[in-house]
């Protein structure tokens, strides 16, 4: 069992959190990840910002813009991950072009005696190697469907990384089989059509998707629109092994601004609320924390 699968199964029902690395700075991200880890996140997804995030709604688009404006680079991201010591395994969520273009810079090539010729065709392997080296446990690439994933699947297998695929409300039949045969770690169940973003309710599509996935022995985590402990409870009750929360956390970061300690406290409290909700949905009796 991979680290990611174990983190979900052993902490069932699991809380998976997403924030964008570099929003508003990589130093802040470090504090935020540690806060989420303390708050009860069982897995933490870190977004590596890409300029054209077509799967994201306005909240995460804005976070990505803040991260890019702050000068976040893939190498800065990897150094941050290398620095982090969390109980929760870390995943990177980014777009395929970021994987394809990662490689030693021209300057590094020039100074490195083992320098290879510049690549004439993009290749995902340097990114995956570096991801494994800094201790990432897996990848999620929202614009890479199973049909195009063979090179990345192979590279991930070579380095012991999980490759998580998204299962959409429109995914059915042979395509679902194909995805479930390639997925590792967990299946990311997209709760509704559309882009990421906090919503006020849990969609019916969630229940339908979880029913379609019942027969597959892979942990299922539901994301896209989950923002409250009550959503988490409902989703776990519907049969999911975990809930994924992103935009609701990114909203908290945006509200607090740069270098503000309360943002980390707010993230920790939110993670705790969501984890309690998930456990409530899983039939675990959780007392509410005492009000101060």
């Amino acid at each position, binding site marked *: 069992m991979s680290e990611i699968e174990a983190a979900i199964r052993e902490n069932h029902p699991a809380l998976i959190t997403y924030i964008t690395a570099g929003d508003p700075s990589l130093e802040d991200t470090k504090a935020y990840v540690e806060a989420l880890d303390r708050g009860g996140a069982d897995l933490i997804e870190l977004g590596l910002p890409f300029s054209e995030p077509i799967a994201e709604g306005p909240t995460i688009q804005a976070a990505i813009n803040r991260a890019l404006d702050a000068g976040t680079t893939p190498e800065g991201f990897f150094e941050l991950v290398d620095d982090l010591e969390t109980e929760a395994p870390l995943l990177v969520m980014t777009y395929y072009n970021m994987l394809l273009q990662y490689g030693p810079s021209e300057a590094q090539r020039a100074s490195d005696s083992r320098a290879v010729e510049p690549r004439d065709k993009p290749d995902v392997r340097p990114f995956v190697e570096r991801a494994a080296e800094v201790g990432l446990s897996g990848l999620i690439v929202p*614009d*890479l469907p199973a049909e195009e994933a063979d090179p990345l699947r192979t590279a991930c297998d070579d380095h012991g990384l999980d490759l998580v695929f998204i299962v*959409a409300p429109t995914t059915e039949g042979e395509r679902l089989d194909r995805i479930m045969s390639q997925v590792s770690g967990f299946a990311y169940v997209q709760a509704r059509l559309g882009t990421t973003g906090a919503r006020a309710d849990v969609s019916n599509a969630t229940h339908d998707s979880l029913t379609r996935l019942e027969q597959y022995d892979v942990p299922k985590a539901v994301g896209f629109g989950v923002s409250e402990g009550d959503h988490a409870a409902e989703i776990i009750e519907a049969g999911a092994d975990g809930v994924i929360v992103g935009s609701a956390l990114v909203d908290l970061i945006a509200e607090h601004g740069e270098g503000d300690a309360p943002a980390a406290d707010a993230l920790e409290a939110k993670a705790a609320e969501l984890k309690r909700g998930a456990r409530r949905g899983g039939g675990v009796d959780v007392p509410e924390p005492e009000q101060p």
Partner: protein
Amino acid sequence: MSKPERNRDRDSEATFGEYGGQYVPEALMPAVQELEDAYERYVLENEDGFMDEFRDRMRDFGGRPTPLQRADRLSDRYDREIYLKREDLLHGGAHKLNNALGQVLLAKYMGKERIIAETGAGQHGTATAMAAAHLDMPCEIYMGRTDINRQRPNVYRMRMNGAEVNPVTAGSGTLKEAINETMRDWATTVERTHYVIGSIVGPHPFPKLVRDFQSVIGREARDQIREKAGRLPDSVLACAGGGSNTMGTFHEFVPDEGVKLYAVEAGGSSLEIDEENALAPNSATLSTGTDGVLHGAMTKLLQSGDGQIMESHSVSAGLDYAGVGPELSYLVDTGRVTPVSVGDDAALNGFHRLSNLEGIIPALETSHALGYLEENYEELGDLVVVNASGRGDKDLETVLEETEKRDLEAAPDVEVFDQ
């Protein structure tokens, strides 16, 4: 009349060499595959007479065929035979209707209820709005805020044809951002909505679908030049942004190895990249880009070393895009298509020259091909076809403004305004 037999294996391939593919979010994959199926049945096999209806409508509503006209004064100026394929005379004033009408009609055959599209210069948006009105389909167009401001007449035309226009404020507010936002809409509404993509970009089958609808340009031009000049041309020129008029013009000539094909890109203000500000002051993707994945396809891109897509620039909104169709990337790598570029100044001079010499006001996009012709006619042989992809009425505000900033040899004297 059915479409000539084609090799199904070749047309069903999702890639052109290493370019192309289907790099889209999972939610869109079933729709992309549904479109593949519809492409093969209706477009390649003319099921239910789809292609017959398409051609009939392009004749009666669109005004096809468009003429191939000998440009007499340009021919004198360059001392060789110059012919213009007059796509500017197509309904709507540009080649865009070929694709827009084809796709809106295809959406109807597929049982879709709603049309969405992105637009840069507004030409694809206006063509889609016209086609949607003609075929009675609700239509929403996404357009960058910057483009809305520089292409106001087109925005008004779309509204007059009944389309909603949704401004996109992200990034530089141009075509790239409009495509992002249209893809997000599609990912939300995919079950009943068809996305009419405006160029030979995006996931398979869009690059082939759009090319096939546009290839009527080259098919007509090839017949017309043989009739008028008695032979195939030495060179064919077309401007290239995303590349739909380019591939539409070239496709039929690709097997004619003696015909040189020139894709004229926007050189903007410079071909040098400003890496620090992630800015390419041009849109010369085929000439200077590197391989990567954007908007569903592997293709050549203007991007930073890290893989961030750069903001591009051209005086022509319709060429202002950091990507390009994967088939053009492939044809450039194989040497079949020659990528060249001219800057904003040469394009503006090309605009004024054609207006003045031939009585045709060309689109700023087309003006790039005319700028290249002026600077390099000696290399193009004795018989040259230029695709006049669109007319320039939409560009008058931009041309007035940009001409005032410059000392352009071909610009008219407009002192009349000061009297």
